[in-house]
């Protein structure tokens, strides 16, 4: 495709393109505005989430480009555009000391949630005005977007377009985070104060990403503010935790540190005096990010650090339960301009996840521990020509995985593996004409377990049919080597396992087609259809014999699964004005099939959801901000009971007079539809001369007791089904101060 592009003749209409960068960090300034003027012509565009912009269909002439970004200096460039030329203009904007009203940032940043096909971006400001459970959670807010679900009110695991949480790659500044949850999944480990933008690639993601069958969640650390007059900070309190964020200038660049910790300990300690079973529990997390310009601002060095930990201990008469889990991650990245058309970067990163559970019950001890470490090096080069933008990179990752299961002082299972993963990718974004763009890519992977080499082609085609209507088609092949073993209600025991040569890696083939219509600055509409085929899926075999010591993945998992997910998503967004918000609708089907599950028949996984509606509304009234978010979806699939029967325990000969419950076909029943309305109101004010804000949030405003799961009790003469409900209405209050 690159070769074809180079051979292609000149196009008739001209194109202005380039990238808007932060001068200090050289990070792209997502959603910067670019205004183009000539003697008789004026138009403008909003850059994408990476700061790239393209203006097509321009006649030859002299143009003035003006680049704006809130909180940054404005830059102007003059460009002479020839007939059919493509002129590339990259600019770096310097941070400005001008204080901007938060409301203005909010209004601008609300403009583009869906920028590209199957790609959704939420900025920090957008996340913070959405209703939240206690405090803003970057992952939980994604459930308000079409195609994204969580399994329950207490889960922050993402189910994207029919894929499970294991099929979404979660990155923080390009570093994989393996268990981003606190409090068993109730909250994510991402502190909203420390997060800049969150981009979710729901499907058909580009070649620069890999390793998961479904989607990618790319979380960017917040850059420190560019003010040059010292250190700034935010202090926040919610019902969950206390938070402190600081940022300031350093060596011509910026740094930011954010930390939070639960403060329930004194309360739990008091409660424990009367009820010893009340657990000791806390969590904390710390985020750091710094950028330092080098080579006269032609390059920059960025450093990211992340630390999150949960600790639980419960002692009771018959024993104790102790559990700790946490992540540590860090990265150093150097990025530099290598010439007019070249940009290069090198990054080193490491990520560690460790989980440990110790239990003692009636003098019988058991423990489970899991460690997962990766060290990665990533080299990337980007070249931008007249009609091509080519990005290529190499990524080498070394993993260290260990798992140990000890029961009754006996080591039942001890796994220890050190696989290596070498990936190379190339992406070419080719503007064939001013209206047609093709982005083709290839990712090639070598995985040391089984000495496998895999090829993953990717393709995306965009056609700007008119000024306001665009059509897009994308697809690709994907593989997954790391398998997550997770229990929905207890994410603290999450476990990642690398596959070995006894099984094939999971495969998916994704296709997405979409149309966007932007009739005005105020409104945007889109429709997408997606289809995913899944092969060689595996699920943990929790029906195997206990204490088995085989280290082969084929002995630990049920293998050879198939699946598919297909559906359509409709999205409408009101971007500007006092009233803003969006409405999304998803119609979807998801199915799975394993030889050893459901007698080999197809079944709907529990997160199969036929209909899903997401509505968000936000109203700005001066210092007051009102928000509402509503979710409505088909009830989750569950396995209902079909009969009761009696059989003796073959090892004791005991016949349970209450009988046993016979399950029907897997997930052949449905819980009631899920719906929920969340509300929030926030007010900005001045406290001792500093900006501050309080917020009042109401989770599940009309206290819909959504169904969670069903249990069948056989103690009565007739079987009694009992439905466990999800969370009721929960109001919370929060306050934050900036200084």
């Amino acid at each position, binding site marked *: 495709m690159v070769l074809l592009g180079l051979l292609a003749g000149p196009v008739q209409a001209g194109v202005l393109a380039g990238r808007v960068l932060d001068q200090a960090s050289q990070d792209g300034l997502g959603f910067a505005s670019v205004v183009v003027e000539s003697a008789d012509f004026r138009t403008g565009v909003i850059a994408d989430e990476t700061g790239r912009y393209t203006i097509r269909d321009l006649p030859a002439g002299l143009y003035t480009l003006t680049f704006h970004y809130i909180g940054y200096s404005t830059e102007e460039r003059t460009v002479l555009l020839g007939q059919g030329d493509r002129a590339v203009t990259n600019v770096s904007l310097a941070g400005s000391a001008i204080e901007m009203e938060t409301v203005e940032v909010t209004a601008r940043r609300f403009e583009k949630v869906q920028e590209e096909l199957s790609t959704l971006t939420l900025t920090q400001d957008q996340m913070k005005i959405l209703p939240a459970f206690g405090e803003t959670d970057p992952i939980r807010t994604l459930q308000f977007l079409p195609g994204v679900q969580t399994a*329950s009110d207490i889960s922050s695991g993402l189910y994207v377009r029919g894929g499970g949480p294991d099929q979404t790659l979660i990155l923080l500044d390009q570093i994989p985070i393996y268990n981003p949850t606190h409090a068993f999944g109730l909250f994510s480990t991402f502190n909203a104060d420390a997060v800049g933008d969150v981009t979710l690639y729901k499907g058909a993601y580009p070649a620069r990403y890999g390793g998961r069958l479904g989607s990618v969640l790319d979380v960017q650390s917040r850059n420190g503010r560019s003010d040059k007059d010292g250190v700034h900070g935010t202090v926040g309190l919610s019902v969950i935790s206390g938070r402190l964020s600081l940022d300031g200038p350093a060596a011509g660049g910026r740094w930011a540190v954010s930390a939070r910790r639960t403060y329930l300990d004194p309360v739990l300690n008091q409660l424990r005096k009367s009820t010893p079973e009340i657990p000791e529990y806390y969590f904390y997390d710390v985020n750091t990010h710094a950028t330092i310009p080098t080579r006269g601002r032609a390059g920059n060095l960025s450093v990211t650090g992340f630390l999150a930990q949960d600790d639980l201990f419960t002692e009771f*008469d*018959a024993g104790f339960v102790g559990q700790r889990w946490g992540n540590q991650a860090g990265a150093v990245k150097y990025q530099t301009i290598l010439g007019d058309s070249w940009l290069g970067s090198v990054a080193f990163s490491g990520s560690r996840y460790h989980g440990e559970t110790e239990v003692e019950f*009636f003098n019988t001890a058991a423990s489970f521990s899991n460690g997962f470490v990766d060290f990665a090096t990533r080299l990337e080069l980007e070249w931008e020509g007249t009609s091509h933008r080519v990005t290529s990179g190499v990524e080498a990752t070394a993993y260290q995985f260990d798992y140990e299961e000890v*029961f*009754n*002082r*006996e080591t039942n299972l001890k796994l220890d593996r050190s696989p290596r993963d070498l990936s190379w990718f190339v992406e070419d974004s080719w503007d064939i004409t001013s209206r047609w763009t093709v982005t083709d890519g290839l990712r090639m992977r070598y995985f040391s377990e089984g000495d496998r080499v895999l090829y993953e082609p990717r393709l995306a085609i965009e056609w700007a049919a008119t000024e306001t209507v665009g059509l897009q088609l994308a697809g690709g092949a994907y593989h997954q080597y790391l398998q997550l073993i997770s*229990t*929905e209600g207890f994410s603290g025991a999450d476990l990642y396992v690398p596959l070995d040569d006894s099984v094939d890696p999971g495969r998916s083939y994704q296709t997405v087609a979409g149309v966007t219509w932007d009739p005005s600055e105020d409104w945007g509409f889109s429709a997408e259809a997606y289809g995913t085929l899944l092969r060689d899926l595996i699920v943990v075999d929790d*029906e*195997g*014999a*206990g*204490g*088995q010591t*085989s280290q082969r993945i084929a002995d630990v998992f049920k293998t050879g699964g198939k699946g598919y997910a297909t559906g359509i998503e409709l999205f409408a967004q009101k971007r500007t004005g006092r009233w803003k918000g969006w409405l999304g609708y998803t119609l979807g089907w998801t199915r799975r099939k394993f030889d050893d*599950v*459901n007698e080999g028949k197809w079944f709907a996984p*529990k997160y199969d959801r036929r209909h899903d509606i997401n509505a968000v509304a936000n109203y700005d009234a001066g210092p007051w901000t009102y928000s509402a978010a509503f979710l409505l979806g088909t009830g989750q699939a569950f396995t*209902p*009971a*079909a*009969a*009761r*029967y*009696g*059989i003796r*325990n*073959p*090892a*004791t*000969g005991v*016949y*349970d*007079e*209450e009988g*046993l419950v*016979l*399950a*029907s*076909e*897997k997930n052949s029943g449905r819980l009631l539809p899920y*719906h929920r309305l969340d509300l929030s109101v926030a007010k900005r004010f001045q406290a001792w001369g500093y900006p501050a804000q309080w917020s009042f949030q109401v989770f599940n405003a*009309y206290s819909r*007791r*959504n*169904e*969670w799961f*069903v*249990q*069948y*009790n*056989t103690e009565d*003469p*007739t*079987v009694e089904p009992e*439905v*466990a*409900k999800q969370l009721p209405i929960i109001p919370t209050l929060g306050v934050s101060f900036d200084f």
Partner: protein
Amino acid sequence: MTSSLRRGALVALTLILAGCSTDREPGDLFAPSNEGTIVLDAVLIVDAPFPSVYLSRSAALDEDFTRDGVAVRGADVRIESGGGEILVRYADAIGPAGRYDPAGPNPSVLPETEYRIRVMTADGELVTAVTQTPARFQVTDWVQLDARGEAVQETLATVRDLGDAVFDDPRNRIPYAEGLLEARFDRPDVPAFQVGVVNLEEDSDLVVDSSIFSEEDLQDLDRQLSSPPLAADAATLRLPWFAIFYGGRTMVRIFALDENWYDLVRTSPELSGQAGAVAFGGNLGDAFDRPVFHVQGGIGLFGSASVDSNAFFVLPEEK
């Protein structure tokens, strides 16, 4: 806002709030009933005579369940060799439980042999199943390890050598929770093992601290427990102390399982030490699934195992 918009908003709000109720009829949470399915229950033990066979039917969930009420009587039951030779004929059901006992000669079950059961009900329903019995299985050593599980402190006497006198042998009089009890054996080629623990006393005292149990919990403490299926890849099995609640004479049986028995207990948590467990459906885990039955024309178990056992006397914990 116009009055029509207000009315519309009011109607929408009413509809939403009306939808808040999540109460529904219990029967809505049942699948179409599987009642009336024949349930076969028979396990062959290598070197033991052929066992009784139990026949019953599954019942509707919203009907009272009693063992007598679901028993199947009047069926023709026979066990054949793999070649089709009739080995054991069964007499008509006796008692309320649908139990069929062997009629006439009753040979012992052979190891590594295929057996087929054939049931024809009075209504003409045919139920069949096949089992391949495992090889003979024998524990070579029953030992008591130190608390760290590293050194052998005592090798226990066996029932095989001493009979009932095993309970009086000092080696087999073990204080509760002292060390770790381990069985060592040559592992036969079976998919898994299951351990059954039976307290032979009728009213011995608890050896666990009774103060930690509620009255309701105390009533639920069984004298007969079983383990989940265990791989025992290292040809050892350790007895967890949490499987013992009562002092006195205690018997441990280790079953080497055939595929049918293994598949049923691995997919039926209630049959592996969790009798009366609540079955979960819905989205908290996926533990509630249909068990794997190897029965044609019905459900249940026609399985086999070879077994070895030993016994000891549990003394109160030494404080």
